[in-house]
């Protein structure tokens, strides 16, 4: 009797366990996020830590983000020119490139590059400190690791990504202009004038708001997975991967949510 009910209810119980674990994970992340925000918004702050995070998250990401933006803008321009030609959309190519870059591709691609570069680095850094008990040593020295490790990273990621996105927007449009100049023979001045006449402040602003949310997600995922790394070097490796993957998935999901809020007329 017991075995039969076990056979029948086993899969159901497994499903329930999985759901409970998922809910528990959501709860852990939410609590971690709340504590992180509280630590970031209230003194004491560690200015040297914040500055060094700004450098590593924001400034040193510039080359990779710039390259991504340039090639994306160039490819987008070329695709819209050749594909949009079917319904004469090639004449509004600069405007479509500007819309696509500022509203969607700029923030999302900058965030994904940053997730790969920064979220994983944060996870491995904090994870290694956990594994070697440096975080515990910090607590012993009465330094709150949330203030010293987590808060600077959250602050730096949330503020850096909108700034990086601004650079992405500019360089992406420059990439589109370069393609249209050399391959399509459209004068750079006309391309730029069309773009500047067309885009509105809200196109750029909505992208920057998204970027702020994405930046917070990147910092949060990097710190959370690093802080919850278990089991030595292997655990750190796993934390690194899951920080990047979960950051990327959350970025794309929240991108859709934010866009559906912004796109309402």
């Amino acid at each position, binding site marked *: 009797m017991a075995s039969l009910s076990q056979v029948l209810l086993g899969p159901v119980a497994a499903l329930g366990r999985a759901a409970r674990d998922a809910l528990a994970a959501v709860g852990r992340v939410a609590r971690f996020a709340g504590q992180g925000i509280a630590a970031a918004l209230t003194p004491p702050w560690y200015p040297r830590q914040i500055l*060094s995070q700004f*450098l*590593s998250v924001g*400034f*040193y990401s*510039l*080359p990779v*983000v*710039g390259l991504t933006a340039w090639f994306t803008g160039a490819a987008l321009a070329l695709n819209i020119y050749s594909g949009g030609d079917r319904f004469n959309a090639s004449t509004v190519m600069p405007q479509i490139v500007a819309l696509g870059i500022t509203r969607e591709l700029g923030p999302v691609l900058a965030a994904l590059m940053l997730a790969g570069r920064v979220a994983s680095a944060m996870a491995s850094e904090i994870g290694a400190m956990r594994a070697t008990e440096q975080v515990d040593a910090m607590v012993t020295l009465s330094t709150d690791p949330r203030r010293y490790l987590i808060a600077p990273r959250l602050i730096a990621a949330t503020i850096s990504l909108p700034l990086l996105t601004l*650079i992405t927007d*500019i*360089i992406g*449009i*420059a990439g589109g202009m370069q393609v249209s100049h050399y391959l399509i023979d459209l004068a*750079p*001045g006309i391309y*730029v*004038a069309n*773009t*500047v*006449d067309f885009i509105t402040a809200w196109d750029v602003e909505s992208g920057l708001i998204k970027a702020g949310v994405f930046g917070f997600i990147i910092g949060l995922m990097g710190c959370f997975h690093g802080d919850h790394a278990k089991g030595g070097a292997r655990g750190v490796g796993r934390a690194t991967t899951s920080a990047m993957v979960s950051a990327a998935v959350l970025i794309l999901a929240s991108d859709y949510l934010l866009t559906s809020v912004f796109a309402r007329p």
Partner: protein
Amino acid sequence: MRGNWGETILGLAVLAFAGLFLAYALGVTGVGKQGATYELTARFGEAGGIQPGAKVTVSGVKVGDVREVTIDPKTYLAVMRLTLDDKVKLPSDSTAKITSDGLLGGAHIAIAPGGAEDDLKPGGEISNTQGAVDLFGLIGQVMRPKSDAPAEKPAAPAASAPASAAPKGTADLPEM
């Protein structure tokens, strides 16, 4: 901070490039150079697609933009406040006309300078105006006559002509 000069220099190069391109873009479109301007008003019977921010051109060159579009509740005319470059003085009998770049392109105001001795004063009004042409109304006017209205006109001569021409026609036939 970490002594990696290569990355620092690359980062600075990216920033410099973005800054230069932004400066170039603003220079090309003249967003940055907001020189001295003066205002004029103009009343139009049909505003068409003109919205605040639309271009004002003389001979196809941008000399200013539309600041505000309102309706005059007494005359039902569209009143536009234009901001023009201080260097461009317009004769008092200049004509303002609403045109568009292409078939469905962005509407703008083209000003044809007149020949009067005195210039329009700042705050003055361009009295000679020509509102937007309702393109689809025009197409409708051209197309509709084919079905009913001209059916009366060409049909009437056609109906009357054969009446008078028919005897001739029949008279001509036997001759051939």
